[in-house]
């Protein structure tokens, strides 16, 4: 039997730093270690995104069901 309880287990912490309240003026100046680590994480994951599906302007992927 699992002893896991969703109400007592600590939250999952994301590698994504919360910048919602950070203005663009302040954003430009950010250069702390936590910020750089988070930016590196996001950029690295982004560079690995591959084109599994090509956009096809001629008819919804040629009619292929894409998911």
């Amino acid at each position, binding site marked *: 039997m699992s002893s896991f309880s969703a109400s007592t287990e600590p939250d*999952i912490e994301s590698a994504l730093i*919360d910048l919602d309240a950070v203005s663009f003026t302040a954003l430009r100046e950010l250069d702390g270690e936590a910020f750089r680590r988070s930016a590196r994480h*996001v950029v690295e994951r982004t560079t690995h995104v591959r084109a599994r599906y090509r956009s096809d302007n001629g008819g919804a992927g040629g*009619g292929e069901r894409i998911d």
Partner: protein
Amino acid sequence: MPPAAESHPVFHRLSWRDFDALARMDGDEDMARRLRRAERSRRKLLIHALLTEATKEPGSSGPLPSLGAAWELLARAEARAPRAVNRMLANPYTGSWAGYTTRLLRNGIGGVGPLWMHLGYAHAIAAAAAIRAELDFETAIPAWHGEAMLPSLGMAEFPGAETFSSVVVRGVNGRYSVSGAGTTVHLPGAPDSDAPGWRGIRRVRSQVGAHRFSLWLDDLDPYRGLYEPIPPERLPDGEVTDWQRLIDEACRLIAAHLPGLARIMPVGLVSLVPKPQVLFRNPSASTGEAFGSAVVGLPTDGASLAETLIHEFQHIVLGGLLHLVELYEPDPRERIYVAWRDDPRPLISRKLLSPVARPECGTRCRPRRRPIRSRRTAPRRR
């Protein structure tokens, strides 16, 4: 004094309770808003990295102003109207642009057109934010085949312009124009309408009781596709009417049969990229980077569209979740069989969730038809 994000960094979080709710497709509006908020942070990180890195590359601005000008215009717009900048950050195609341009810059690969055109889209985002903030300003933005996009607003056309060129956007006393190739296009008072030389992004609204749905039909933005930039594909007005009717029907069905989804869906699905009808199929697609958007072929009826919207909405939610937390180690060589397809497919966690949406709608929105069989699969806890 360092900003709070530097001295006391806070990271996005997800409770296991919320994770369980998402796995059961039982999320609420607050959860969808938290995913959207995390997406805004992700886009800010990418924009920061892009603009910082690009300024170190000589000639990266091409014929456009330096990228510092885009920072400054965004900051001015934010100081006047923070919601204007938030609207631009929430625009799904800000995400796909940032992802695509990051890959061009970081991976040193060639893209559609020169790099300055993609980097220069930052000026277009800043100009659209400035228009929304009602600023007086002047800047230059890229034009592709004489078509200059102001994201979330519309497109100015300059026939006869070079394949890749720049045009000037101006705002003076609440009036906005785009000039290039010897022509000036004046934006209409309501930018979602058309005017000479201007095509607006049209919006479809639908209300069912207390449920309000609002979807942009974006057939213009170059980053609205699934991976690389694509040219505009303007829907005739008659087809916009068809979309309005089908969206009305779909929303009525969703509100009647899945009221919980009807509450959360408008938070996470804000834009459709309309595509032509494909007989006997309902093609649709979405990407994690364009959080909030789905590419959808014109469906045959409202029930088909309801099914597709629910399905793509689940993809969008899972795409947002995957940006928040890593649920698997990607291995591009791996192929697995699943219960609902005949062909082996790459392992992507979205496969765990999205098939649920179809039977959900199949059984509730189409009660007289045979529901699609599937097996529910839940993510495994570590």
